[in-house]
């Protein structure tokens, strides 16, 4: 993991960032590394944790419908969320 860690984190998927953070923590907890390496991993870990928090904070789920075009091709159509989306707990009809 040389330089440009910042840029890499931005490109990382959330799950990849979380996994790497987990690995960084595990490596630090396992010990057997120099103090210098510890501090480098700490920096990396903070970057990853920040990236994870930021991703979760700004994320919003999307809803799409899969439809077939007249040519038979599959494509997706964005559907807007139904905002009076109170949880109706009635799953009784189909």
């Amino acid at each position, binding site marked *: 993991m040389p330089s440009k860690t910042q840029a890499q984190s931005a490109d990382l*998927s*959330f*799950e990849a960032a*979380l996994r790497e*953070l*987990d690995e*960084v*923590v595990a490596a*630090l*907890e396992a*010990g057997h*590394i120099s*103090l210098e390496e*510890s*501090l480098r*991993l*700490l920096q990396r*870990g*903070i970057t990853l*944790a920040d990236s*994870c*928090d930021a*991703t*979760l904070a700004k*994320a*919003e*789920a*999307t*809803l*799409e*419908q*899969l439809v*077939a075009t007249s040519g038979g091709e*599959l494509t*997706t159509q964005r*559907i807007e*969320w*139904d905002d009076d*989306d109170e*949880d*109706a*707990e*009635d*799953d*009784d*009809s*189909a």
Partner: protein
Amino acid sequence: MNLFSATEPQEDALTIGQLAFQIKRVLEADPILSDIAVTGEISNFKAYPSGHLYFTLKDDEAQVRGIMWRKSVANLAFRPSNGDRVVATGHVEFYGARGEVSFIVDNMRFAGQGALAEAFERLKQELASEGLFDTERKRPLPDMPRCIGLITSPAGAAAHDVISILRRRWPLARVLFIPAAVQGFDAAEDLMRAMSWAAAVDELDVLIIGRGGGSAEDLWAFNDEDLARMTAEFPKPVVSAVGHETDFTIMDFVADLRAPTPSAAAELVTPDVRDVQAFVGSLRHRLYNAVAGDVELARTRLDSLRSRRVLTHPQERLRPVREALQSQRTRVRDAFSRRVKIERQVIATRRAQLQALDPLRVLERGYALVSDTTTGALISSVQDARADQSLKIALRDGSLAARVSDDSASTRND
């Protein structure tokens, strides 16, 4: 007498067409046969491309041809198959051209829970024996799915419930909704169509397929054998979500995970964002702790270094220093002694020079040195002498004792 009269048509004989018409008229006028419910087992089931269904309804004693026209097929909640014991409602018709009596079916349902269970068990046994339900086949669900497929009816509450729960729990989700018919004769086929669409989406991480609660017939599409096989072959993990907690379908057994209800499926495929946030927080905490631990470790290491021999027994560490010092000292001493030697030579030289000035050396040349015998003070002037003074006269090879006479003093007049 007409010889041929016996072979000629008699006036009261009917044509076949007339007979058929008569049969038809009687049969179809019968109030019972025009609207009845019949229990029987289906065999020779055949669905024609035209949309009409042909089959045989039978029991131990008899069999009747059954027909279900396409327009009635739409009433069916499920797709019947051979061996199903059903209650069929409809009326009897006579089709003269083929000389057949048919039971024209408007609708069918299973002949009670027993019949349903039978049909269900039959298929379940078959698929189980093929290993389709084996635990080893079950794939784990992704921890944090990015793309979640949902196959269900656009009309039902299930779609709404699942979608709103997915949205609330997991904001990183991209929900891909694939509407399909979930009940009726064509439902299984439409579900398979939707599934084949879903299979074409590479990004898909997991698929939820299901519907809300309903009658056993309503759920029957999820017991379809072909759909079950397709589910087993689906490239991504499948979560079944059919009906209520107490409803079991073949789909539930073949899916990678059975959710008791559609809402439960939404919760099973997604983590709760709050849990994930808490997890990130805990990792952050452990991160700092681990590094604090490392710093602590470094300090301990430093402490242990301090207590080590080099530091507790510094003389060992100092030995080379001392040795260096020693050799330095030797060199200094050598230098000093050389210096001393030089000084000595200098002194010897000086001494020789001094010796040249030594008064005793002057005596060699015939001079004398006069001093007071008692005080030792040098007498270099007549003024220093007095009468009767005892003098010591030092000469080259010894000294003489002398006494100053009263009138012996004379001053040199230069």
